[in-house]
């Protein structure tokens, strides 16, 4: 059965708000990075930029936004299409398996980013 237990915040309004705020954070981050690249970067300036605390916080914020945004979005897609209602009882196997795969991927991404920033 599809329940809301696996949703991000278990509350429709919070999920909806987080989805919007996280998209703004990601947009700001990508615009900023795009702007840096457009202005020309080399290893030293790129390294110096990412060594600042402000940039580390910004990157962490962006990966946090990415993880929550991806989870809320995919959770919605999965609970629309990969359900018992759509696929028969196999839906109740396919959905949790894919959900676990997505969670694992997102956690790995997050750890990887932290590793890169502080590595």
């Amino acid at each position: 059965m599809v329940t809301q237990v696996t949703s991000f915040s278990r509350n429709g309004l919070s999920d909806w708000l987080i989805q919007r705020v996280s998209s703004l954070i990601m947009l700001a981050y990508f615009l900023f990075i795009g702007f840096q690249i457009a202005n020309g970067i080399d290893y030293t300036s790129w390294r110096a930029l990412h060594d600042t605390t402000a940039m580390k916080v910004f990157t962490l914020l962006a990966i946090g936004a990415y993880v929550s945004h991806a989870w809320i979005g995919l959770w919605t897609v999965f609970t629309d299409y990969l359900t018992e209602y759509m696929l028969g009882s196999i839906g109740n196997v396919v959905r949790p398996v894919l959900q676990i795969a997505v969670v694992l991927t997102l956690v790995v991404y997050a750890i990887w980013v932290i590793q890169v920033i502080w590595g």
Partner: protein
Amino acid sequence: MLQVSVYRFNPETDSAPQMQDYNVDTGGKDLMVLDVLEMIKADYDASVTYRRSCREGVCGSDGLNMNGKNGLACITPLSQAVKNNKLVIRPLPGLPVVRDLVVDMSLFYAQYEKIEPYLQNNTPAPAIERLQTPEDRAKLDGLYECILCACCSTSCPSFWWNPDRFVGPAGLLQAYRFLADSRDQATDERLAKLDDPFSVFRCHGIQNCVNVCPKGLNPTRAIGHIRTMLLNRAA
């Protein structure tokens, strides 16, 4: 001759639904789709089954899918529905078919029931009636006119995928009708029941509902108002 193709299914005798074709002589008149169905039933095939009652867009019982678009057969003229002299008539999508063009509306009504579509006010009733200012009354315009034909909810993909959890445009329009009513006192309880990830938030603003409502109502706007009320309540 108008080529009409009608969805036929009798669960007692058929293993699968099929389309049946009829050539109907409309006499060149711009009839309503319901008139054509009545002609088929009278002159060609008495077993064709559909719901109808008022034949003037009031009762909401003949919601059908005509050439891919939901609407009331009784107020949809052929000039609007027919393309290339062809008319394909199917039941409302997404609901179980009882027979031919008749669908089982239980899921749709269950969602309507969920939003408690009646005035809730625990103060003692005044001698005559609960009064409203003309301004407060005007807030119900565009909401109370709904005839529960289900054209909107059965055109909404979110309702197709989650008919048991997503209230759907018709139910949400009525939810807002009571949220917006100055005489109703259960606003907070009503909002609390809509706060989960499915009831309201499965609406993705696709606006199919607005596109088909035969009464010209706008469920998407009502859903937006509910969202704003939920936000203000949380803030």
